[in-house]
């Protein structure tokens, strides 16, 4: 079996049960960061320098969505010999964190399965594979059995 490796280390949990994105929170002002921020706070009114790791919400609502009708250029990894199958990209609003996070939808989820405001959940997924490695990432899928 191939070795599994996160596409970027430290951005999400390695546990498939209750899979979550990992961010950080400024201990001074409470602002949450994803991708994680570990050195300085981006709130201009805050001088915070300390951050704690936080698990981001496992569910959110669709802010918007689109798809990739054409093969994206490198550094996106795809097999140039395979027929291009569009994937869906979702922008998801996380209420508690007050932020929007982008992610690919699970394979098979098309733009027809989504609508602005619908609930989605975050799940583990595969971005691409090489001969030796499976590169893992986060994906979104409609919550509650829709689609």
């Amino acid at each position: 079996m191939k070795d599994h490796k996160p596409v970027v280390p430290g951005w999400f949990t390695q546990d498939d049960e209750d899979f979550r994105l990992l961010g950080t929170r400024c201990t001074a002002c409470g602002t949450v960061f994803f991708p994680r921020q570990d050195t300085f706070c981006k709130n201009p009114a805050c001088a915070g320098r300390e951050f704690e790791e936080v698990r981001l919400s496992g569910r959110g609502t669709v802010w918007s969505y689109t798809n990739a009708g054409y093969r994206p250029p490198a550094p996106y990894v795809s097999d140039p010999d395979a027929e291009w199958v569009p994937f869906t990209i979702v922008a998801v609003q996380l209420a508690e964190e007050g932020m929007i996070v982008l992610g690919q939808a699970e394979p098979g989820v098309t733009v027809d399965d989504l609508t602005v405001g619908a609930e989605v959940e975050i799940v583990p997924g595969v971005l691409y594979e090489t001969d030796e490695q499976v590169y893992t990432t986060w994906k979104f899928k409609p919550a509650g059995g829709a689609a």
Partner: protein
Amino acid sequence: MSREREVVVLGAGMHPWGKWGRNFVEYGIKAAQDALADAGLEWQDIQYVSGADTIRNGYPGFVAGATFAQALGWTGARISSAYAACASGSQAIANARAQILAGLVDVALVVGADAAPKGFFAPVGGDRPDDPDWVRFHVLGATNPTYFGLYARRRIDLYGATVEDFAKVKVKNAKNGLHNPNARYKKAFTLEDVAASPVVADPLRLMDICATSDGAAAVVLCSKEFAAKRTTNPVRISAVSTVTPTFPSAVIEMPDIATDSSAAVKPNELSFRASLAHAAYEEAGLGPEDLSLAEVYDLSTALELDWIEDLAICGRGEAEKLLRDGETEITGRIPVNASGGLGSFGEAVPAQAIAQVCELTWQLRGQAGARQVEGARVGITANQGLFGHGSSIIVTR
């Protein structure tokens, strides 16, 4: 604002947009020479050269001010080079304006030129997880049209826009571009043409999205005192806004994969794009009701509708009605992209924001030919780059 903060656009010039396969410097020099001739000046009269950089043409592009100055012939003029993604041209204008307003120079030449690659813009090479531009391509496959698609979809789901509305923007801008000798595409399009083009980023099709082009634009800027000896009714730059977003920025923007968090601080009422225009209006002491026309950054057809609302020409969700009623046509109440816009030009990154000012200059002088907006007195540009760079410029007469 006081009139004291104004500079004059004494000359404007462009190299036609297209895919010409030549060096960007050649395009820039043609635009510069046209702007100098339009101003009635010689190259040796220029005291300051402000270049807008291109990052896709090697080192000469990174130091564009020096590159153009050397090509025109070293004169000992002071120079600068500016990069701000799609807002590079405005940044170059802002630099020249500041020199003039500070009284350091009387007359400056601003030049931006590009020779663009085919297809999607991609990030520079290497394995760089600390660069959001690398991350969005590698981890998400998110191209520039991905973001345009997200914005367009919201117009459909929230405001009831249709893909036909988006196609109408293309049809309008293509019609305007027919009359622009500097436009790349001089071809009328129908709604059916747009609908028949392939989907790039749902709901946007190929003809909803602007191409990348070669092209160049230049302006000669000067103080009002310098202009007074040469013209009695000058076109003036009354505002140059290049403000950043304010924290927390709540709209997902290229190239980020997440917005700021508003867990601790509430977002500003004005989005980044709206704040660019707001600062320009404040600086000029004008409002949307004063506008004769607007040149906005239609990287996609749907984005033109977003910009119309960001410029406060109408409320959120009302731009489709303006479009359907013909109000944004050249003959309408508030013509948008009379030049043909990016839809007719394709984006020549460092030249584009300067080209917007060229168009407004010609419009305000009454020199825009078949695309002339009758009685144009006040024009605004709007433009957005990457990483919090954007601009809005107000030109008056």
